[in-house]
């Protein structure tokens, strides 16, 4: 069955594609742009591989820096890939068509953020144990690093969608997007690195992970609303 056939097989109501069809199209588009998937990952790995060259290869120093550096680099890699989240849809007019369809824009944004996480946040989190090894992360921190990054990158994908929606009508949003989104990443970063540090020091890290999960739940509920509103403003000029 061709992809086009399966798209329409997912069924639809008049005026817009169904959620399943929307998800399939977004995944298809994301998987066809392989460079967009590879670039944040390469950035993540390269910068962390450069770190020992900058601060010196002392195992103890690297072990102390590892949780924070991995988290900050994951944050930057997510941010870099976020700029293009709505760009091509805005430029080719399909974002406008989506705003006109009877399907709420909320779900379209939610699905876009989910696909963004699937192609950036998820691989970043899965790569993180390898980078932990490179940076001599203490063994107690691996599990917590992986789980906290899984939760945290999902929140960041959602929060970043708001910034991307606000700046989609601008020609060069790069730095402005970073300025809007970075402060919103702060709670995620604090609890993420806090959880890994607690795990390394042998304390309980469940509460921090629970807060990360709560942040994710709040972001999933609120960020698509804000992003949908921002898209309508961006389309109106």
């Amino acid at each position, binding site marked *: 069955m061709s992809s*086009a056939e399966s*798209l*329409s097989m997912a069924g*639809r109501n008049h*005026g817009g594609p169904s959620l399943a069809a929307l998800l399939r199209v977004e995944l298809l588009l994301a998987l066809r742009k392989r460079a967009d998937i590879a670039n944040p990952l390469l950035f993540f790995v390269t910068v962390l591989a450069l770190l020992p060259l900058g601060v010196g290869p002392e195992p103890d120093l690297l072990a102390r820096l590892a949780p924070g550096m991995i988290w900050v680099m994951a944050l930057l890699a997510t941010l870099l890939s976020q700029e293009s989240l709505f760009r091509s849809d805005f430029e*080719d007019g399909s974002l*406008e*068509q989506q705003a*006109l369809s009877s399907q709420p824009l909320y779900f379209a944004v939610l699905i876009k953020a989910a696909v963004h996480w699937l192609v950036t946040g998820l691989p970043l989190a899965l790569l993180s144990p390898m980078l932990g090894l490179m940076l001599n992360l203490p063994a107690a921190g691996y599990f917590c690093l992986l789980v906290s990054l899984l939760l945290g990158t999902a929140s960041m994908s959602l929060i970043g969608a708001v910034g991307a929606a606000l700046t989609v009508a601008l020609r060069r949003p790069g730095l402005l997007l970073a300025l809007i989104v970075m402060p919103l990443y702060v709670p995620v970063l604090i609890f993420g690195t806090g959880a890994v540090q607690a795990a390394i020091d042998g304390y309980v890290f469940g509460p921090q992970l629970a807060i990360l999960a709560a942040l994710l739940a709040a972001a999933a509920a609120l960020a698509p609303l804000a992003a949908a509103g921002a898209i309508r403003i961006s389309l109106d000029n």
Partner: protein
Amino acid sequence: MPANSESHSLLQVRNLSCQRDGRRLFAGLSFTLPASGALQIEGANGAGKTTLLRTLIGSAGDYDGQILWDGRPFPASLPQFRESLLYIGHRAGVRGGLTPLENLAWYGANRSAAMQALEQVDLFGFEDSLCQNLSAGQNRRVALARLFLPDAPSLWILDEPLAALDVAGVAALQGQMAVHLSRGGAMVFTSHQPVALAGLQGIQLADFAVDELAESAGGEHVFG
């Protein structure tokens, strides 16, 4: 019976005035679009054609006046309005990363209907190439293929549908417009070219232009 005549008009615009960037483009625009009615908006570049269409689809909020769909005013009737709306704007709404077939599927067409529509816009053989590899005119045709789908919505609002089309494309599109009208559909479109359609109404936006100079002179008069 006034209630009956109301129900025959799909789209009604009363005393509409639009502004963009603080400048009033036109004012006092009123028209009624019945079923099987077609309306061509004409005007010079910058006269506000696109702004008018974007106001009609409910995307531009900066207007005064009343827009009624099926006798009920915006924005209350917007959800029903959008169910029966097919809008093709300046940006065609064709995704470069998808093939023409997948693009039409995204708009809800099944495979055989999409293939037929693509054949009618002369894109047979291109259905599986990515749209980013097609020409501008071909991308335009992919967007216009939506008009050839069997379950196309009843109100078409088209921004420059004839732009970038060759002679055969223009003829095919005019034919499809006539078919749509004969099925009881309605349409509003902008075009710089003359369009041959039975029962076509025209609006010259220049007739509703706001004379900013006269207005500011009037303002001074109040102060003086």
